[in-house]
């Protein structure tokens, strides 16, 4: 009877969590689909290579060795723990206890593999614990500059801390579960780390051990479900999106900025005196140059925003940020995501159709003109990002809107544009003097 109640409770909890998780991920998906289409198919072998090296292999993380090693502990621990999670899940569904162990306990080779695997997970978990404590102290005690910038105030820093604390919570659950289980069976499983912890429960009776074991089991399960539901609202979403984001990452040299085909068409008409302009389609949407809001960015830019885990390597490397300017590439990504979520909530509150809220990604407490102006397009942010996010692509598209739609440029730039148009140089020199250098 008790087992049946547990199975039912387990299924109900999983279903509820599954429902809310689906809602969360579907919200993210619908939001990303607000972006303009861009064909990023093709070159699949090169893309797969990036996915394997940069996402799975964390190649770009290792440019900065201390956080790379710590991050690798957590990443590896997370991946390997999924094996034990699988057993927990089957146990929950069937009401069994360590179903895999009991299936193999009389086959000595398989039994050793099971014990080795769980022991390995336990050792990995110890490393996860060390890394998590190190990360918490980097953020709160050592106060690593990039983890303490103004754009992290409020929810972002709570989010980051919550994720780290939940790691410790999950570890506490799994170790109390394993240790109590070991104690109940006089250590017959032979798990490495929990065997070491067993003396801690020496004074515990059987009931107490059962309670600890069940609490650990349920606590772990609930923690995992809670994280699954929370993930789409957190910066931690990178654990999933890093994979598609590196797969769809830019393959061109970093210096490349796309040419706008709609402008090529107009210039060609302008340059060809015999050209007949195409008939104007009165129903066509007016052409808008550059990006003013999230709808004008591509879906890849929006995926970038959701993939960003706010580590701030980009901002730490940004020459404008280093010299005290307002620009922070990380903030560009965070603002894009925040605006996109605002758009998503607006859409969902209005039966799936976004209602104009007279706001945009530029200004409105999102990205200021001053920030956009300060970028030197040096690509330091793009180079630094461990998962191939490009803040620069968003900056350039927003700049295009400022300059070409709003005629919003500093006076010096307007002078430069005029000189380029009239003299073919950013300064007011006569084109006829272009060869004068040879007389120097």
């Amino acid at each position, binding site marked *: 009877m008790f087992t049946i109640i547990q199975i039912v409770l387990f299924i109900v909890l999983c279903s509820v969590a599954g429902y809310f998780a689906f809602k969360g991920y579907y919200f993210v998906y619908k939001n990303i689909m607000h972006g303009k289409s861009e064909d990023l198919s093709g070159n699949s072998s090169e893309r797969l290579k990036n996915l394997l090296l940069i996402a799975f292999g964390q190649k770009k993380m290792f440019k900065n060795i201390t956080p790379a090693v710590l991050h690798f502990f957590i990443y590896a621990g997370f991946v390997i723990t999924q094996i034990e999670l699988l057993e927990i899940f089957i146990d929950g569904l069937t009401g069994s206890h360590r179903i895999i162990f009991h299936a193999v306990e009389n086959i000595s080779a398989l039994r050793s593999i099971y014990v080795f695997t769980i022991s390995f997970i336990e050792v990995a978990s110890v490393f996860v614990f060390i890394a998590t404590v190190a990360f918490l102290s980097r953020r709160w005690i050592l106060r690593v500059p990039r983890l303490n910038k103004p754009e992290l105030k409020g929810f972002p820093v709570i989010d980051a801390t919550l994720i780290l604390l939940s790691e410790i919570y999950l570890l506490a659950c799994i170790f109390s579960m394993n240790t109590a289980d070991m104690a109940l069976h006089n250590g017959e499983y032979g798990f490495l780390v929990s065997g070491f912890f067993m003396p801690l429960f020496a004074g515990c009776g059987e009931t107490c051990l059962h309670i600890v074991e069940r609490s650990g089991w349920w606590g772990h399960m609930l923690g995992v479900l809670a994280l699954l539901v929370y993930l789409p609202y957190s910066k931690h979403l990178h654990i999933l999106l890093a994979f598609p984001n590196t797969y769809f990452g830019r393959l061109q040299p970093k210096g490349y900025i796309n040419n706008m085909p709609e*402008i090529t068409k107009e210039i060609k008409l302008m340059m060809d005196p015999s050209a007949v302009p195409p008939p104007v389609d009165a129903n066509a949407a007016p052409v808008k140059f550059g990006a003013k809001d999230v709808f004008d960015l591509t879906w890849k830019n929006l995926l970038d925003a959701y993939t960003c885990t706010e580590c701030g390597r980009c901002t730490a490397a940004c020459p*404008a940020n280093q010299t005290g300017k307002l620009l922070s590439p990380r903030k560009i990504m965070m603002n894009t995501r925040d605006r996109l979520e605002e758009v998503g909530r607006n859409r969902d509150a209005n039966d799936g159709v976004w209602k104009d809220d007279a706001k945009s990604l530029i200004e409105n407490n999102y990205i200021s003109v001053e920030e956009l102006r300060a970028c030197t397009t*040096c690509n330091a942010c793009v180079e630094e990002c461990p998962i191939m996010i490009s803040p620069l692509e968003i900056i350039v598209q927003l700049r295009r809107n400022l300059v070409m739609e709003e005629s919003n440029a500093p006076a010096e730039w307007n002078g430069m544009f005029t000189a380029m148009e009239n003299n073919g140089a950013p300064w007011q020199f006569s084109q006829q003097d272009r060869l004068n250098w040879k007389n120097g």
Partner: protein
Amino acid sequence: MQVKTYAEYASSGETPEVLFWVGCAGSFDQRAQKVTRSFVKILNHLNIKFAVLGTEESCTGDPAKRAGNEFVFQMLALQNIEVMNTYGVKRIVTTCPHCFNILKNEYPSLGGNYEVIHHSTFLQKLIDEGRIKITDTATFKGKKITYHDSCYLGRANEIYEAPRKVLEELDAELVEMKSCRTKGLCCGAGGAQMFKEDEKGTKRINIARTEEALESNAQIVAAACPFCNTMLTDGVKSKDKQQDVKVFDIAELLAAGQGLETINL
């Protein structure tokens, strides 16, 4: 100084080996003009048949594009492409990383397909072929050179080694700044910042970079970009170190090494 234009080549029925794209800085900026002349001295010394577009060259459009003005960029780009395609240009060498980047990466989809080479790579190839002979070793003896990575050469196009190989030819010690190669700090000029005042902050970017250059204790700061050159020269001046530290382009240094140029250290 012997310089022929593409038009002159075309009228004599000859074809040059390579088009030297001078760029706006190289054409008009007094400091960058010197770099242009040094590079031409090397080309002439090696009897390389090169042509310039002269008055037919226009700005590539880079600062407009990076500032967000795609109209001005494409207008200039399409004009330049028309000129170059009419002459049948195949290979381009340029002393400006911004021209290099945009000609190489952004002109192709507008119909301009050329083999584009930055002068650092061009000079490195000449060195590899054994065509450059260093005759002046006295100038650089006991001196330290530090190379400043241009963003548009380095991160943008992953050219880190060619300029360093050029400098290694000289009889000087090559030292690195605190941030170099992929982590190289920008000089502050890119993205059309060269043409406007900085946003407010605690420091100018070129000062931050100059401080790194001075920390390296090099007497020579080598640049491979006319804008980096200006920014660092200004930085050195504002630190009042222009007597001890000089900023040169790699072409000027290599020309000096060949005895084609005298530089004052």
